[in-house]
């Protein structure tokens, strides 16, 4: 029996309750269903960045992740599939959202399938997914799914009918794409170096005679 796939959802909403978290939950549910249809089990972890706001500011100054933030980073690093959701602030992802991805090790998301999503008050911000989030995750060498999901406030009250191209339809399509990437491809060569075990920061050592020959 294969292990359940690790689905990790990163939500950068600030209010309680938050529409960002609402969209994150819909994407998590839809991805879990899509994976179930493919016969894959899911182990879901939700990272609420609000809870790590202080630790993230500290990390910028000290260079290390403390406590629960270290656990969140480890979960994201071990994810088989990632859903990331940010509110739009000043025409881009929120600072809190960016800070989390700023403190990750450069190769941590290499090859990880990622579904991009954002929320805002109006649909005028929808291209933030393409001009801000997608380049960020390309830089991180993650594999973004083609459909990114944007939800304006209005979207939460529209398009529920099957066949209608509203929010639920986009959520299903994006989740299906993420599930296909996470469960479909037979262990694509992810990451250039072997990932260390959870208790090991350092994976394979490069023997010194190789370092000398470089």
């Amino acid at each position: 029996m294969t292990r359940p796939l690790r689905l990790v959802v990163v939500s950068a909403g600030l209010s309680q309750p938050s529409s960002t978290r609402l969209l994150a939950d819909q994407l998590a549910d839809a991805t879990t269903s899509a994976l179930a249809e493919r016969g894959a089990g899911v182990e879901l972890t939700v990272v609420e960045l609000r809870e790590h706001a202080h630790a993230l500011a500290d990390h910028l100054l000290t260079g290390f992740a403390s406590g629960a933030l270290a656990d969140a980073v480890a979960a994201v690093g071990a994810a088989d599939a990632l859903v990331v959701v940010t509110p739009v602030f000043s025409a881009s992802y929120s600072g809190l959202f960016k800070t989390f991805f700023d403190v990750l090790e450069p190769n941590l998301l290499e090859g990880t399938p990622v579904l991009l999503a954002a929320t805002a008050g109006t649909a005028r911000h929808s291209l933030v997914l393409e001009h801000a989030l997608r380049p960020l995750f390309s830089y991180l060498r993650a594999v973004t799914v083609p459909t990114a999901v944007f939800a304006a406030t209005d979207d939460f009250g529209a398009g529920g009918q099957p066949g209608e191209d509203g929010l639920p339809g986009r959520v299903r399509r994006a989740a299906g794409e993420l599930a296909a990437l996470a469960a479909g491809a037979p262990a694509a060569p992810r990451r250039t170096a072997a990932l260390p075990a959870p208790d090991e920061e350092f994976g394979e050592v490069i023997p010194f005679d190789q370092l000398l020959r470089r």
Partner: protein
Amino acid sequence: MQIGIFSVGDVTPDPTTGRTPTEHERIKATVAIARKAEEVGLDVFATGEHHNPPFVSSNPTATLAYIGAKTEKIVLSTATTLITTTDPVLIAEDYAKIQHLTDGRVDLMMGRGNTGPVYPWFGKDIRKGIELAVENYALLHRLWREDVVNWSGSYRTPLQGYTSTPRPLDGVPPFVWHGSIRSPEIAEQAAYYGDGFFHNHIFWPASHTRQMVALYRRRFEHYGHGSADQAIVGLGGQFFMRRNSQDAVNEFRPYFDNAPVYGHGPSMEDFTSQTPLTVGSPQQVLERTLGFRDYVGHYQRQLFLVDHAGLPLKTVLEQLDLLGEILPDLRAGMAEGRPAHVPDAPTHGSLVAAAGGAHDGTVHAVDDVTGHRAEEIA
């Protein structure tokens, strides 16, 4: 077990008065701190190396030579020597010279330096930091062990028939430590040569230090220098103490809150629980320090950072007095349970003994027995 201090050499305003010392004051203070370290019985004084404000620690060899002339016993070291941007040929000459001047009271710790612009100022590229550290140290290692070196590499001009002078004192090069916070390649380098490995320790959680040291120990054994628990390990540490722990907390807080490295970030309470920083009574510092062995094993060198964040010289000297007071207990505690096969940190004396005694390595331009020049008999 060697216990000492290391200084970064920062010129930082005292946040309680707003006053910034002059470079002259800071340079003289560094000498006063080193002399005090010897006076209270510490084993090692190490200076950093920086080439930009707000630091006064450029030209560390002048500082060490001067301190060497003003002291009798204390071992002089670096924390760190920039093996990336400093020509290894100059390092070979400079530190061999200090060896002779101080009768062997010197060793070095190699580091890469993390200030971006320093690299181009010295004609180097920070993205090649590891490669520079590997190649430059490989050359330095040869310069101290081979009388005539023919060499070519990627990062400096080739050498043909080069003899680094003076030759190391008594035919024994200074012992070398390699310092790195987070690069496994440097732990691997230290292990490969059987050199010491030093972990800065003070800015990161203990779990990280434990893993870096464990990696070094494992690879030290792999390369056949001894068992893992015989590898030569050094750690940084950081404290502020007063007889009454609450006085220490109150007095140090403004310095912590405004410290250049971690200031305006985590609270002092969070930082002391997450890292080895101890702010409290001498007894608390003693107990915390003895606890470092729990995650790195028995080790060889403990260096503390005491002169930073704008602390006035008077306060730093008081810290050294307090450290001197707990020193006997610290030594006794470190000796407790220490297996006989765990070595002490190498010194000039122990290295000479291991080499079967001192021999003068002087290279004469013309061999006075054969009449050959040194280059010809290489």
